[in-house]
């Protein structure tokens, strides 16, 4: 066992930290309040290579490992979870999906623009009536010979507007149920794509989230990922990896709230002493720190398994469920430690608490993770 990070991993973590403090923190409250997309910051992150962090250098990426990636995501999420989710969807789902399941032609055609951040990736799986029950895809991809004709609606799509490249999951053979589902690479500007209004969300307010409507959208046949009917299996494989990213985002949110609560508890006085000297607060800090440590270790183990090419489906479900739930608990306690100040926006912890909530919901709810975990345990 080796718990030491490499020099490069530490450098990436520090680079992400420096970027977040310098470029994301100053306007986060305004972007959160007014739902402003972090356009300037996304461009800078692209220039620094964060949108191609794990992509093979032959396609223009940084070729870093999953451990570097989760360390970077955590640091960004500590300050700004909305920017972290833009990175997470782009890297864990869109870029990873094309790089690991795409044809060589698809990789050469699409990866360079994803690696450079010229195009931001989005992943279109959820539908108005298909969230956790992802097999119930109503969006139809009709096989028309040399192209597919797409009709239907996707919901809760991160980077739907600013994203340039979609990975779309849609049903080609409804009678085959989940075995009839396909995955496609779709240009966001294809004729027939329209967006619903920006969702007015509880948290992650500066990431853009929309529903996406497809009306007779033509997708060339060569844009299908994998064999005919591979789409559902592909989506599930991607989400296994995506969960590691969301777990890292969740623990970042929690870590950000913890840092603020720890600092505040050493400054704020009550009953003649700093509140950290009261056991009621000190024990909260201890509980929060243990959860953070557990969560980080789970994430790092998943990232390590993934880098080693070993199975990580069970562990990533555990990490996602534990980190999402812990993020909610830790951020709630951070608000509690701040008392009244925690309830106002200036102190950031209320925002982090709002942002934590969705980590229990998207890319598989905590309940879905428990299904994955328990079914794996009970399989034999």
């Amino acid at each position: 066992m080796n718990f030491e990070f490499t020099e490069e991993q530490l450098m990436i973590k520090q680079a992400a930290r420096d970027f977040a403090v310098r470029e994301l923190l100053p306007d986060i409250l305004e972007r959160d309040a007014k739902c402003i997309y972090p356009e300037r910051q996304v461009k800078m992150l692209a220039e620094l290579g964060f949108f191609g962090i794990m992509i093979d250098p032959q396609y223009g990426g940084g070729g870093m490992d999953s451990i570097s990636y989760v360390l970077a995501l955590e640091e960004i999420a500590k300050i700004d979870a909305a920017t972290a989710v833009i990175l997470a969807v782009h890297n864990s789902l869109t870029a990873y999906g094309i790089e690991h399941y795409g044809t060589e032609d698809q990789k050469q055609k699409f990866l360079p623009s994803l690696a450079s951040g010229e195009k931001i990736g989005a992943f279109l799986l959820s539908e108005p009536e298909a969230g956790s029950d992802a097999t119930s895809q109503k969006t139809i991809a009709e096989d028309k010979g040399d192209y597919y004709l797409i009709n239907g609606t996707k919901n809760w799509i991160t980077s739907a507007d600013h994203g340039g490249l979609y990975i779309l999951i849609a049903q080609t053979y409804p009678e085959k149920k989940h075995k009839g589902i396909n995955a496609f690479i779709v240009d966001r500007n294809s004729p027939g794509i329209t967006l619903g209004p920006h969702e007015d969300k509880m948290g992650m307010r500066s990431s853009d989230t929309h529903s996406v409507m497809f009306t007779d959208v033509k997708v060339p046949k060569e844009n299908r990922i994998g064999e005919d009917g591979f789409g559902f299996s592909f989506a599930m494989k991607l989400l296994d990896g995506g969960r590691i990213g969301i777990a890292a985002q969740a623990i970042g949110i929690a870590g950000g709230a913890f840092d603020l609560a720890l600092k505040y508890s050493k400054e704020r006085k009550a009953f003649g002493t700093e509140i950290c000297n009261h056991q009621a607060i000190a024990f909260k800090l201890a509980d929060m720190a243990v959860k953070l440590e557990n969560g980080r270790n789970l994430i790092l183990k998943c990232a390590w398994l993934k880098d080693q090419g070993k199975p990580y489906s069970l562990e990533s479900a555990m990490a996602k469920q534990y980190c999402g739930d812990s993020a909610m608990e830790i951020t709630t306690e951070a608000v509690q430690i701040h008392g009244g100040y925690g309830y106002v926006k200036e102190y950031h912890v209320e925002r982090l608490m709002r942002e934590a909530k969705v980590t229990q919901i998207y890319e598989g709810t905590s309940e879905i993770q428990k299904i994955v975990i328990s079914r794996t345990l009970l399989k034999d």
Partner: protein
Amino acid sequence: MKILVCMGNVPDTTTKIRFDSEMKKLDTNGVQWVINPWDELALTRALEIKEQSGGKIEKVSVINIGKADAEPTIRKALAIGADDAYRVDADPTDSYFIAAQIAEVAKAESFDIIMCGIESSDFNDAAVGSMLAEFLDYPSVSAVSSFEFNDGNISLKRDIDGGKETISVSAPFVAIVQKGICINPRIPAMRGIMMARTKPIKVTDPVATDSLIEALTFDLPVSKAACKMVDADNTDKLIELLHGEAKVL
């Protein structure tokens, strides 16, 4: 032309400083090391100048006087964009020693522009740049807050009392830079981090030089006394405390 940026390896500026039991040496346990912030600004500006020079600046090198444990910090400078690095394998005992070692390398490698931060964030000597210029018999410009290459017609701005002084200078010279030289230190990009290990760090032995300073002891700052609150109406109490306790009246 070639630029050499001198870089110190210093404790992260948020480090809680401790000394050994005899108060003679920094306790380095748990210390995270970083590029001296002023040197990091110098490096950032050097790289910007190189990029804007249209090929006239062929490379930017960094130099550190330190043992092998300074190499992660040196590699950060390489990740940020320096082309190569020099490390003189010695403990950086005092400014005179450090300047003498840098001078040897600068002379041997014929650097045209040498940039260093105005001081180090740990010992604050603010002496290496001037000493280095003396060793090399080069002009030195201190407190530089703006550096324009202008196709080789170099123009520097110095901060002086109440304003700025603009001067031109011909290479070779030493520029001792301070805040304002660039907007922010550069954050290393993924590609730079990936490339850092492939860039050379040339390690040389120090030349025999005496250190001129021996630190006798270090003292930590006295911690702030507790604040006493006095009721706004109770001026008698305030005067009594200022006179009797603080002894300022």
